[in-house]
């Protein structure tokens, strides 16, 4: 199963079944066992702090993550081999992702967890070294790897495999693919503005959707963070009851015990919010993943615009060259050209010169036709593959986000149950006053 001959196969027996007639991968028929994740268990097990010298020879502290892999058949057999493992830092994950984006521009590439903590509800967790943040990032990185390794197209990538299995020298291998040059031109293209005449309507709609998704998801996350902040305040203020009741109970005879124990429950209530909100961060992370996915989706649409634009340019160019040829051949000037003007002013050129120019034009036209053919294929392939992946993405998104909303409800229910518990207990204490 090789895609345009760009990646090598990692090694599976079922390839032939999934080969379409023209040799390209038949995405829709990929079974779970065919993706990398089907053959290999992957997890990001730990995070550790390291110190080292950076590119400008300054001391820095960074976090590395332990990636563990085990062959799936060994696990299935009941053997429990020790996993292979290696350490990677966040920047290496970034490198991998950039490589994938450039190499598979028609795929909505799964996003990485955020680089810096955003939409924070409490100033503390804005720190990248905060253990809770590191833990959530570990989970996010694992999620990224699982998504990539189970993707029908991405999972076959050789660079991905190396990332998971060879700690040393991986960076050099990536750079050797020459993706960096492509990345630079891709970045330039992404930020450029160009007018496409006939973009695929579906892609334009998808681009619109991705923009709106980004906007609305951001708003939701911002509002959620504010709510979390306020809820934190409410719970923590109740801790003051604990303190005051305790002090008050010391001067009371009959009311003392009731007040004292009620105070303890108020303390418990105030303390409970930390866990509650920490859990809710996971919900926020699930939403954030799709906020970042929106960007990846947008990039695919932009790539379509770019290929379509290049095709239109190439077609345009071919048409104008053909016109030039016609003019040269028939002598009839339809369009204004500098050559035409100079011809008029200084007289026609010699027949040999004309012949030479015609010949050149013919060559250019042949080249142009090739270019148009290539671009057409590129454009069509991109549209076809991208559309498939966008459909896959849409279904995945609907499923994942629905689950996220359900998770959110489950968390709310848990919080309510805790609240009922605490206040029922407090009431019992008050009854003893």
């Amino acid at each position, binding site marked *: 199963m090789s895609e345009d001959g760009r990646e090598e196969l990692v090694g599976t027996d079922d390839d032939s079944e999934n080969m379409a007639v023209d040799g390209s991968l038949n995405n829709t028929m990929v079974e779970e066992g065919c993706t990398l994740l089907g053959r290999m268990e992957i997890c990001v097990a730990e995070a550790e702090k390291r110190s080292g010298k950076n590119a400008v020879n300054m001391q820095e502290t960074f976090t590395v993550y332990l990636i563990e892999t085990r062959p799936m058949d060994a696990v299935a057999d009941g053997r429990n081999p020790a996993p292979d493992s290696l350490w990677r830092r966040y920047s290496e994950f970034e490198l991998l992702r950039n490589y994938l984006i450039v190499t598979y521009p028609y795929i909505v590439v799964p996003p990485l967890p955020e680089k810096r903590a955003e939409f924070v509800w409490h100033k503390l967790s804005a720190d990248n070294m905060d253990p809770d943040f590191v833990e959530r990032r570990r989970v996010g990185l694992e999620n990224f790897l699982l998504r990539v390794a189970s993707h029908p197209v991405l999972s076959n990538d050789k660079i991905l495999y190396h990332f998971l299995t060879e700690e040393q020298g991986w960076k050099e291998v990536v750079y050797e693919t020459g993706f960096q040059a492509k990345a630079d031109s891709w970045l330039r293209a992404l930020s450029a503005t160009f007018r496409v005449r006939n973009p695929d309507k579906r892609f334009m709609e998808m681009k619109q959707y991705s923009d709106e998704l980004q906007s609305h998801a951001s708003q939701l996350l911002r509002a959620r963070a504010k709510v979390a902040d306020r809820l934190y305040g409410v719970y923590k*203020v109740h801790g003051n009851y604990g303190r005051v009741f305790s002090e008050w109970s010391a001067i009371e005879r009959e009311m003392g015990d009731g007040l004292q124990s*009620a105070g303890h429950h108020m303390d418990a209530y105030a303390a409970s919010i930390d866990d509650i909100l920490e859990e809710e961060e996971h919900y926020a992370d699930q939403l954030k993943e799709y906020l970042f996915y929106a960007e990846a989706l947008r990039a695919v649409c932009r790539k379509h615009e770019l290929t379509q634009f290049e095709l239109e340019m190439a077609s345009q160019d071919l048409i104008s060259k053909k016109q030039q040829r016609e003019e040269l051949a028939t002598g009839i000037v339809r369009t204004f050209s500098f050559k035409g003007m100079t011809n008029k002013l200084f007289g026609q050129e010699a027949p040999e010169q004309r012949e030479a120019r015609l010949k050149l034009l013919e060559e250019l036209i042949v080249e142009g036709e090739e270019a148009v053919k290539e671009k057409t294929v590129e454009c069509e392939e991109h549209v076809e593959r991208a559309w498939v992946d966008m459909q896959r993405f849409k279904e*995945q998104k609907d499923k994942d986000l629905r689950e996220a909303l359900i998770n959110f*409800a489950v968390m709310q229910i848990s919080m309510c149950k805790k609240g009922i518990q605490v206040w029922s207990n*407090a*009431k019992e204490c008050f*009854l*003893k006053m």
Partner: protein
Amino acid sequence: MSEHTVPADLSGHMLDLDEDEDLEVFSKSTSLADGSSMPNSPSSMVNQYRLEEDDEEQQNGNTKDIFITVDNPESHVTAIETFIMYRVLTKTTRSEFDSCEYEVHRRYQDFLWLRSKLEENYPTLIIHPLPEKFVMKGMVERFSNDFIETRRKALHRFLNKISEHPILSYNQHFKVFLTAQELAPHRKQSAGFLSRMGETVRAVANSVRGLSSRPEEFTLMQEYLENFSNKICSVNKVTQRVIKEQREYLDELKQYSPTYVQWAGLEGELAEPLKDVASCVERCSKETEEQIQHLSQVLLPILHEYVLCGETLKAVMRRRDNIQAEFEAKNETLASKKADKEAMQVEVDGLADRVEMANNALKGDWSHWQNSMRTDLKSAFISTAEKNVEYYEKCLAVWELFLLSQRVEPRKELDEEDVS
């Protein structure tokens, strides 16, 4: 306002808690510490508490013969001023009263008059405080509905506290307050202002002189009071803070649910669950609003009253000290006097009696007040805890319903096994 029908059969009914009709006691099957199950209505519930109190209170409760309500605040406009008149309804079987039912109208000033007369007559009894004249701090305007309602409840509690009091309840001025159609003629008769002036002057003189020795029990009382005042003020502040934080939380919650709706507008399959979550958040907002209301209307006023009680009690202690100081001063003068001792002795003896009476009155009232305080605060705290339980139970139901609606349609999830 409230349709207060005082029932003909008075047995088993608790006084006070005007808040009954405002309280929605969430009756689940919880049980008391002794294992008996929780009764359902507020009044019967409070009766349950009454069984735990000492006999004295129980007797009072079972033989209550006077019922007072304060309601119907109405605005009165004259050339000079605008003020609120409250209706005071009394139903009683007491023989001292000519009729068994009275309806009069009183304004806040009238309540002030009554209280000052009572203080005058019983300087060392603990008389329940009145709501303050004007609330500067809060966002309450003088004639806003919230302010009037809060004041009305406090005035109602005030009169009921007086009627519960074994001594104050039989005071002549109290009777006049409840029964006279026009209070003005009675008010003019009192020389309250002058006597209060005299008292203040004496108090200043005595405090300069100092007290030779305060009986220990009163010293202990004073110490307790300092601490109690302190603590009840703190609880009051904490409660105010809780309300403030809750309000800010509510504000953000109100901004939160629309973001789900906006997103839903974008989506296909996802639109419904997103909108459902939005409506869940909205319903929880409404519950939060109610919870804040409850805190403001039930817990906070009671706490505030006991903050004022702290001040009242301090004044009572001061007056008691003054009475003792006055006696001691005269006593000393007597000791150093050469002639005309007999007349002075009578005076000194009179003052000695006064001291003893004052001390006894305070001692007696002290335990009465402590019980009352305990009952009031206990009931307010319980009510708050119950409201909070109810709040969480309602929110729980909202989210469980959402989950149910989602699980009913597993649909596509069964067809898609994996992420890719």
